[in-house]
């Protein structure tokens, strides 16, 4: 529970700082006349942003998923705390602390490795170094940050070696996360596939599934290089959906960020259906588990159907927020009321 409180405090401070950064950037862009003239209602004001850090902290603490992880005494809360501190360190601009916490997070479960890219992008932005492949200062800073990160990771792993006196922990921890040997049903997508699969193909599919988690970093980095914090949010969400052993604590972490993007609400298209789907699936999880394991009337297909629906709901939620974010950016630069060449009202369509 203490870790939950620490996470909430870290998120509160991080979002407070982030809001200041966002406001400064917005002011700069308005002064530079980068925005279209009729977007007055899309501009964010300090008044509406005042309660967001508090809402973030409350969203995290009062989320039923967080309460469930706390009651189950899961170690997911410790993971969440480390990631929250990493976010705080990144937003405050301290490259060293950010690298250390990222190394800690990667040390615990391998997937936060992908958060290296958004953190790097944010720190570069803060240092006013443009992201150009030919720029020397870009490569210099990247090397510095990568070196800090890798050194802290090596230090932590060697510390574990000295505590344990053997290298056994590497296959036990990282080998376990990557090769997925234990197929106990959880809310993730892996267990059913590998339970049904022939041994011959399991290595191939393990590789495919693991690449799926890491793969989205590069396209997202290309598209969202101006908005690294949103990138970080999407990346955390992708990790918590596609990782090999997800838990509801991971979901609680990325859901805590939703109040930060509350200004996107008017662009979200399916929020009602998606929240209904997520709530219904969360309620049906224990019912179908009971029917499968205790009553013996159902089987794993029933439970996996709900798992699939739940994950699809999450994926659609993330893509909805992504779409809303991009749409708002488009409106900011091109104006809110779009007209075609002949003056009739145009509509924005995602192809």
């Amino acid at each position, binding site marked *: 529970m203490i870790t939950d409180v620490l996470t909430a405090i870290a998120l509160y401070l991080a979002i407070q700082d982030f809001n200041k950064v966002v406001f400064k950037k917005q002011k700069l862009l308005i002064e530079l006349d980068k925005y279209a003239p009729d977007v007055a*209602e899309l501009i964010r004001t300090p008044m509406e942003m005042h309660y967001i850090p508090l809402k973030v902290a409350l969203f995290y603490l009062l989320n039923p998923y967080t309460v469930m992880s706390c009651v189950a005494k899961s170690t997911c809360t410790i993971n969440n705390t480390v990631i929250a501190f990493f976010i705080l360190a990144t937003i405050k601009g301290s490259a060293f602390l950010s690298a250390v916490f990222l190394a800690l997070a990667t040390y615990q479960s391998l997937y936060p490795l992908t958060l290296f890219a958004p953190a790097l992008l944010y720190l570069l932005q803060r240092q006013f170094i443009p992201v150009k492949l030919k720029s020397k200062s870009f490569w210099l800073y990247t090397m510095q940050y990568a070196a800090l990160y890798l050194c802290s990771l090596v230090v932590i792993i060697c510390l574990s070696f000295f505590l344990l006196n053997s290298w056994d922990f590497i296959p036990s921890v990282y080998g376990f996360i990557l090769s997925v040997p234990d197929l106990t049903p959880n809310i993730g997508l892996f267990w059913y596939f590998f339970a049904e699969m022939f041994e011959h193909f399991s290595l191939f599919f393990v590789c495919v599934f693991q690449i799926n988690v890491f793969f989205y970093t590069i396209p997202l980095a290309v598209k969202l290089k101006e908005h690294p914090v949103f990138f970080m949010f999407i990346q955390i969400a992708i990790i918590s959906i596609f990782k090999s052993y997800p838990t509801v604590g991971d979901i609680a972490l990325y859901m805590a960020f939703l109040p930060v993007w509350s200004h996107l609400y*008017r662009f979200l*298209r*399916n929020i*009602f259906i998606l929240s*209904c789907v997520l*709530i*219904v699936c969360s*309620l*049906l999880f224990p*019912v*179908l588990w*009971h*029917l499968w394991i*205790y*009553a*013996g*009337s*159902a089987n794993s297909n029933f439970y996996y159907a709900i798992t699939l629906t739940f994950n699809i709901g999450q994926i*659609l939620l993330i893509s909805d927020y992504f*779409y809303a974010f991009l749409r708002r950016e488009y409106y900011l630069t091109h104006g809110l009321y779009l007209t075609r060449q002949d003056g009739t009202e145009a*509509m*924005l*369509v*995602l192809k």
Partner: protein
Amino acid sequence: MGLLSDPYRRRALSRLVLRLNTPLCLLSYAAGLGWFLALAFPPVAPRTYMSENAMGSTMVEEQFAYGERALSYAREFAGHKKKAGGLPVAWLEKTMWNLGLEVYKQPFSRTLPFPDETRERYMVKGTNVYGILRAPRAASTESLVLSVPCSEGQHNNQAVGLMLALASYFRGQIYWAKDIIFLVNEHDLLGMEAWLEAYHDVNITEMQSSGMLGRAGAIQAAVSLELSSDVVTSFDVAVEGLNGQLPNLDLVNLFHAFCQKNGLLCTIQGKLQRSDWDTLPAYAHSLQTLLLMVLKQGSGRPQGDHGLFLRYHIEAITVRGINSFRQYKYDMSTVGKTLEGMFRKLNNLLERLHQSYFFYLLPSLSRFVSIGVYMPAFGFLILILVLKALDLWMKLSKCDASPVERLWDGDQAAAHGAAEESRPGLLTLVPPLLICHATGLTLYFLPVLGQHVATQHFPVSESEAVVLTVIAIYVAGLALPHNTHRVLTGSGSDRGWMTLKLLALLYLAMQLGCVALVNFSLGFLLAATMVPVAAAVQPTGPKYLYAVLLVLVTPAVTLLLGIFLYQELIEYPVSVLECWQLFLQAVAEGLLDHYLYGSIVFPFVAIFVYPCWLLLWNVLFWK
């Protein structure tokens, strides 16, 4: 994703939902009910078939011939039972010992939460006696159970006799691969629950019993036998278990197959099958059988001692011998041969029954409706709630969008005023939610906790006190002052009741969905009654008509009408007063089932369905 992301299609779809909402809802309801009624039509329901390979053909030659011995055992048992005033433990132990079984007895006791009419005391004590027939050449890892309830009076004596005769016959055979446990349990379901809990070493209910002395491995299947006459005209099977759980369909198929082999007439829900299927009376008959099963499954009560086995993954059915006014009577030997055949087939099982269906409805003994066929009926009913919720959501977001447009026009002051008055926020919803759920919790906890206080002040017995408290709290919920929302600002507006109704509809849909997966009949009955009224209710319009309709669909009235329908279907119609008595009895038994065996019907209705209904009542009286 085209449907969800393309704005043109979205606009068309949302216009469709908004404009055609009521016709779509009506169509959906008609489709749901029509689908359900079509389930009873014989071509829709496929014939049953044996899915388990190990129970393939019925090629054994049964040789049970101890019908007379069964009757003599029955008479001895009846005499000793009368003398002992309960289960004649010593005689039963001695007889089973003489047959060559390993005999054990299990005393148990249970404190009832309140003494009901049949038992009239708080503490119920009894003894179960069971004998184990060890398989001669197997390792005692699996077993089958033949259980007979020991009832008061002249019931089930012949069943005990037949069980003892079967035991003596089985003892002489060498082909048993599983142990057979012959169990006589006292106090019906209480004794059975005590035995099962001690056998599996768990403590689900607060049963106190001595531990289990003799075990025989994992129980694969169980048959509970009830026979109260020397000759039978037909054999009835009961499948519904606790919380609407059903045994594997293969067990019912097994029963049907062996009854047909021995020429024994078999019925389900007391009704015989008809051979024609394309006439209206045949359809009505099949519909009656289906409705009886739905009503019994929806009540969540086990319809025989077998109902408690299902919780432990043990497939079980109850077979009852019925002696009616038919001409052709079957003697004990035929019945014994059928049971012998069934047990020999179950002996062949290699693993637990899992091949056939666990979720089904039986419009007749040889036809079944599986979950894939009956769920769409329920799906159509839930679709109504979803359509109505979508409609409310779109209306609410339209209300939201209009202040923004006014801002665009430049009229800032008016927009602010409109925005403030039309956004009461979620705080106005909290008092109704809290009050409704508090009432639900009171309905659950208070009757049993407060029965002593009630008996001190009023001249009623404890069970009457409990039932009357339940009814009193239920009715009091209607009269609660729900208008606390008037105290808060921004209330009394359209947005308030629309948001509350949206929440109530989604809540109802979720509850009914969850319960329909566990107990389809309960979910379907509640949905068929509550959904149309829930979708239609609103504070504007004919308030008293809506109020009457809402009262008619409340779960208590559904129970009353259900009892009335049940009595009509079993051809034993009752008057209004008798129906009321049966209703009070049903409420008492529902409470007892929850405390004694863990039935979920009463807590589900009290803590979830009733508050949801109160929320709708709240919506109705919003202004």
